[in-house]
């Protein structure tokens, strides 16, 4: 029982990382119908920036905050400079551009910081935390809390603020939004900024666990993509729930199902996702659109 609880929490920890990255992907997918293949590399790159700031002597939480600001501004600029010119060129062109960004960020990180694996300081205590008589890894609990808090803030922003509402409208109904005076193109840029912030937070959360190197996010992005498809790639809530389910499921499978181990986890995950999609093609939370004429 105790071990099961520990494994679930540990699964939730990786799940909340998948959930955050999946949300980052979904935010951009909803507005551009494109998977930003550079999302993971942007997260990795910003995590390196945080590492650099810590090396320069900044306290960890200050580096954390500064990195979030850099991620936001950087991604907005990136969208304006690199994506904007191809905004109307169609999804395939944008996909190619994001692949280009993936390669660029990976290469730049290698160039600036090298490929030697670096340790990234953890903001959480090393001692386990005792909840209800069960000892959990503080790292796991911390990751879950920080990720869920950031997801909560984002969803409040979308639900409660005028700008958040305008961003949702611009993503779903660009033509109807622009005649209301909403600057749709800028909303896309803000979406890039927010996605990059979510990505940076997950990068900094996961780096102490997986260690820092230019390829650290690649596996995670695959899981995040799987989580997004599982939850319904149009649905932010679906992305988050999909990520959490996937994290727990993979962890339990890896622990309790002998032949799966760590090697087959990804394959099993995809088998499950294919099965879900056969039953619910729009994903768990994908909404069949309501419309009456």
């Amino acid at each position, binding site marked *: 029982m105790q071990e099961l609880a520990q494994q679930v929490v540990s699964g939730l920890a990786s799940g909340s990382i998948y959930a955050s990255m999946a949300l980052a992907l979904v935010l951009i997918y909803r507005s551009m119908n494109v998977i930003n293949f550079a999302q993971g590399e942007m997260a990795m790159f910003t995590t390196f920036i945080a590492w650099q700031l810590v090396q320069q002597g900044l306290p960890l939480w200050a580096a954390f905050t500064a990195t979030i600001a850099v991620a936001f501004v950087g991604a907005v600029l990136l969208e304006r400079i690199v994506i904007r010119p191809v905004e109307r060129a169609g999804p395939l062109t944008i996909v190619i551009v994001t692949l280009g960004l993936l390669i660029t960020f990976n290469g730049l990180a290698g160039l600036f910081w090298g490929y030697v694996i670096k340790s990234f300081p953890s903001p959480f205590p090393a001692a386990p935390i005792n909840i209800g008589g069960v000892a959990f890894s503080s790292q796991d609990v911390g990751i879950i809390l920080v990720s869920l808090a950031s997801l909560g803030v984002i969803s409040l922003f979308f639900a409660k603020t005028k700008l958040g509402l305008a961003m949702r409208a611009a993503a779903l109904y660009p*033509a*109807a939004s622009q005649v209301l005076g*909403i*600057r749709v193109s800028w909303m896309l840029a803000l979406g890039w900024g927010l996605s990059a912030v979510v990505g940076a937070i997950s990068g900094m959360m996961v780096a102490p666990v997986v260690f820092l190197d230019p390829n650290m996010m690649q596996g995670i992005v695959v899981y995040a993509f799987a989580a997004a498809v599982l939850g319904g790639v149009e649905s932010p809530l679906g992305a988050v729930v999909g990520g959490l389910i996937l994290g727990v499921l993979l962890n339990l499978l890896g622990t309790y199902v002998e032949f799966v181990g760590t090697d087959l986890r990804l394959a099993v995950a995809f088998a499950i996702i294919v099965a879900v999609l056969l039953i619910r093609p729009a994903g768990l939370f994908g909404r069949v*659109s309501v419309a009456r004429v």
Partner: protein
Amino acid sequence: MAAAPLLEVSDLHASYGEIEALHGIALGVERGAIVALLGANGAGKTSTLRAITGVVKTKGTVRFGGNALNGHGPEDAARLGIAHVPEGRGTMGALTVWENLMLGAYTRRDRKRVLGSYERVVGYFPWLAERKKQLAGTLSGGEQQMLAIARGLMMEPQLMLLDEPSLGLAPIVVREIFALLKTINARDGVSILVAEQNTTVALEAATHAYVLETGRIVVSGESQALLRDDGIRRSYLGY
């Protein structure tokens, strides 16, 4: 000298890629007027409204309240006071009625006055208040059209462009909508340019009308005169 019209369009061309849909049209909307833009399917009504607010690529001049609109996008037209209720109503079906209305006031900063507009709009459409938490996609077609008009009013516009508000609606609903447009026009002084294929209803509401045919204006005049002229009625209005 008479005051310049609120909206003044001359030699307006619009194109989709290489294909030109409007071949130099001229029209005007006086302050406080209701003007009908008539024509069969494909005549260029939608393109005209889109050209005015800059949704499509245009050549020519569009002047609104003395400002040149050319070269600005629809976002700026909205800020200058033109509410464009687009073809197909632009209903944001996955958002609530309230959210749709608030997005109508997106460009306005003063929240108190926005709530004032909301009260006024609810005066015209009392059911909006009762159903403000409902998803707009679950409304009937007529209700969606009314919501689109209400959302446009939330902008406190000087001019409202409506693209075939009657489309797909039962005659009784169409009459209700046009009666509301007349009330809005009379009470709030909102000028209206309405594109329609439903000629009779539009001409009865409008003071002036223009008839489009394949991207050109072929007839224009006072609506009463057009209604009385059998020749025009038969050749251009199709009944």
